[in-house]
């Protein structure tokens, strides 16, 4: 009965319309280089505020998976990955496009993304509920360590400088402090501004940091005379879209293996779609009977990268829904979307709000399947859209940023918050700080402080004794230590793989000369 109820909710008209709109918008945005999945989700959160929770959250999860897939279109046809997660796809995808098989390459990417995303959605449906039960055993100290564990993903969001990444994260913690202290009601850093007492509105801050700052960066390019996001010439879209049965049989094992890798990478805090796709690609090459074909238009290469990066999306949702720990920047923003619907991650999501949660998870599954059909229809148009002049895109994105920030609470103050964070985000990006760690800090800051102070009260003056009496807290502390070093290992692994492929491509160039 419950399954039928959930199916009824997922298949209702408003959910299907939200899913459709989410997929179309996100595939197009994903295909536009510079407009990331993060920005797509941040811009669409205000739209979901007035919707019913299921439709709104299904839309956001659809945007997540759709944007990651959309990134492959320009990666294949223009050698310009729409999102960082599609960088590995560009290697073999563009090689196929140069041979005049661009449409076929997109077809392989579409099929692989659909299967990867579907496998990750199934993993989410089956793994999240039992994991949520674990959260019942959590007290303030465990939540404190979980939040610190979440902060360790800064290592992978930091960009070139770990120090700057950590500074961005701590700045986020500080921004999270602004407003009334949740435990004592004392105002902190509000400077007498009443609107600040409820804290900095997270969604306008995110829109400012990701969208307004992006338009400011775009303006620099416009002034320098660059007109569109991509300047490569169009490759001819030839070839059949769907792979033949023979080709499908060849790529299926790669897809399944890469999908499993992607789900696992997604669960790990700090490892997003970009790392997932490189790990999947490398494993496919390593285990292939013809590794020499990789880099020269191997269908397995596209299949591995695309199934892995879409599989990451469902994987990243598992710790988000069960423990409230975002595994990536997009997941951090999705947490914001969850909160504005009045939902908190954890066991209650799977009991009290089970109808919403399961509907969202099944909606996510459906989104991954529909993505294939929508991708087929709009992939040719999406690549044309990347030619839209930045002189049009910039003003439109700014207009959407203003209306989106205002729509959350019908507050003009929120729009000023968006503008301020746009200004801050622009200079942070210019100075190499990156904005994703700051957003993560804002989200986890409150969680860290309130749980630490609660744990202090519960420890009755003996924190060390209290800590050693809680095995899960000890385990989580160990995980924090391990995950602090994981990004360094991951980064080295990723650069090694990239170097291998660069070497491969240079060898081929020499051969051709």
């Amino acid at each position: 009965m419950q399954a039928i109820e959930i199916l009824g909710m997922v298949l209702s008209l408003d959910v299907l319309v939200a899913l459709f709109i989410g997929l179309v918008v996100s595939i197009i945005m994903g295909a536009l280089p510079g407009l990331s999945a993060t920005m797509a989700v941040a811009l669409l959160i205000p739209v979901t505020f007035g919707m019913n929770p299921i439709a709104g959250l299904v839309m956001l999860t659809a945007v997540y998976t759709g944007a990651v897939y959309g990134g492959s279109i320009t990666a294949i046809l223009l050698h310009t990955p729409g999102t960082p997660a599609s960088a590995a796809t560009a290697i073999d995808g563009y090689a196929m496009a140069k041979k005049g098989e661009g449409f076929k390459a997109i077809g392989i990417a579409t099929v692989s993304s659909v299967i990867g995303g579907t496998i990750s959605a199934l993993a989410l449906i089956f793994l999240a509920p039992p994991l949520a039960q674990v959260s019942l055993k959590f007290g303030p100290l465990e939540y404190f360590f979980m939040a610190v564990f979440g902060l360790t993903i800064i290592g992978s969001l930091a960009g070139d400088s770990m120090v700057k990444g950590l500074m961005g994260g701590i700045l986020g913690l500080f921004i999270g402090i602004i407003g009334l202290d949740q435990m004592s009601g004392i105002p902190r850093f509000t400077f007498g501004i009443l609107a600040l007492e409820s804290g900095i509105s997270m969604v306008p801050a995110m829109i400012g940091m990701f969208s307004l700052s992006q338009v400011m960066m775009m303006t620099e390019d416009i002034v320098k005379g660059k007109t569109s996001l991509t300047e490569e010439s169009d490759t001819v879209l030839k070839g059949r879209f769907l792979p033949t049965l023979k080709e499908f049989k060849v790529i299926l094992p790669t897809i399944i293996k890469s999908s499993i890798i992607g789900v696992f990478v997604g669960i790990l805090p700090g490892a997003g779609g970009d790392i997932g796709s490189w790990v999947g690609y490398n494993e496919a090459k390593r285990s292939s009977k013809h590794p020499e074909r990789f880099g020269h238009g191997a269908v397995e290469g596209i299949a591995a990268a695309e199934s892995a990066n879409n599989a990451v999306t469902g994987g990243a949702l598992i710790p988000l829904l069960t423990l409230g720990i975002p595994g990536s920047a997009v997941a951090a923003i999705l947490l914001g979307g969850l909160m504005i619907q009045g939902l908190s991650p954890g066991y209650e999501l799977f009991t009290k709000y089970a109808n919403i949660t399961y509907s969202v998870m099944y909606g996510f599954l459906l989104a991954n399947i529909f993505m294939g059909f929508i991708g087929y229809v709009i992939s040719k148009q999406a690549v044309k859209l990347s030619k839209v002049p930045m002189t049009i895109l910039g003003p439109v994105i700014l207009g959407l940023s203003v209306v989106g920030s205002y729509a959350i609470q019908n507050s003009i103050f929120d729009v000023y918050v968006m503008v301020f964070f746009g200004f801050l985000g622009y200079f942070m990006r210019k100075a190499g700080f990156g904005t994703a760690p700051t957003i993560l800090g804002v989200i986890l800051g409150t969680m860290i402080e309130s749980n630490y102070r609660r744990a202090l009260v519960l420890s009755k003056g003996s924190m060390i004794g209290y800590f050693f009496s809680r095995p899960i807290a000890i385990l989580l502390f160990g995980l924090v230590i391990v995950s602090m070093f994981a990004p360094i290992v991951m980064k080295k692994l990723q650069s090694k793989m990239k170097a291998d492929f660069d070497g491969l491509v240079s060898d081929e160039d020499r051969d051709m000369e």
Partner: protein
Amino acid sequence: MNTKNVHQDVFISILVYLALGFLFIVSLRIKGDSGLFPRLVMGGLAFLNTILLFRGIKKTKDAKDNGYDIENTITLQDIKWPLIVLAVTVVYVVIFNYTNFFVASTIFLIGLMKMYKMKSWKTILLVTLAFNVFIYLGFVLALKVPLI
């Protein structure tokens, strides 16, 4: 000392120290335990900022010793136009506050596209019209956001 040959991280560090100093003074006025966590966070930021400062000084020194110019990413030439766009956005929000969203958006979109040196009036008007219609249908009619 020629400031052009100083790495931007040095200036950023000084700015962060100034901001931290001000915020620390403000934090002293916060009563009870509520001020502890903010001061802890500021301490962490000050520590990392010190590392940033030393690295900035080292980069500056390396450039001087090896005789090459530092290419800072934040230059007045680069940030001038983005800051103008930001200022225009602030004006947009002010107009929105005193009139309504559609009046403000029309002025803003036309103004910004002209500022970006778009020549075709047909495209400018079409984009402005399409944007306003989309927002009206999506936000005013469907989501009931009071934009008028």
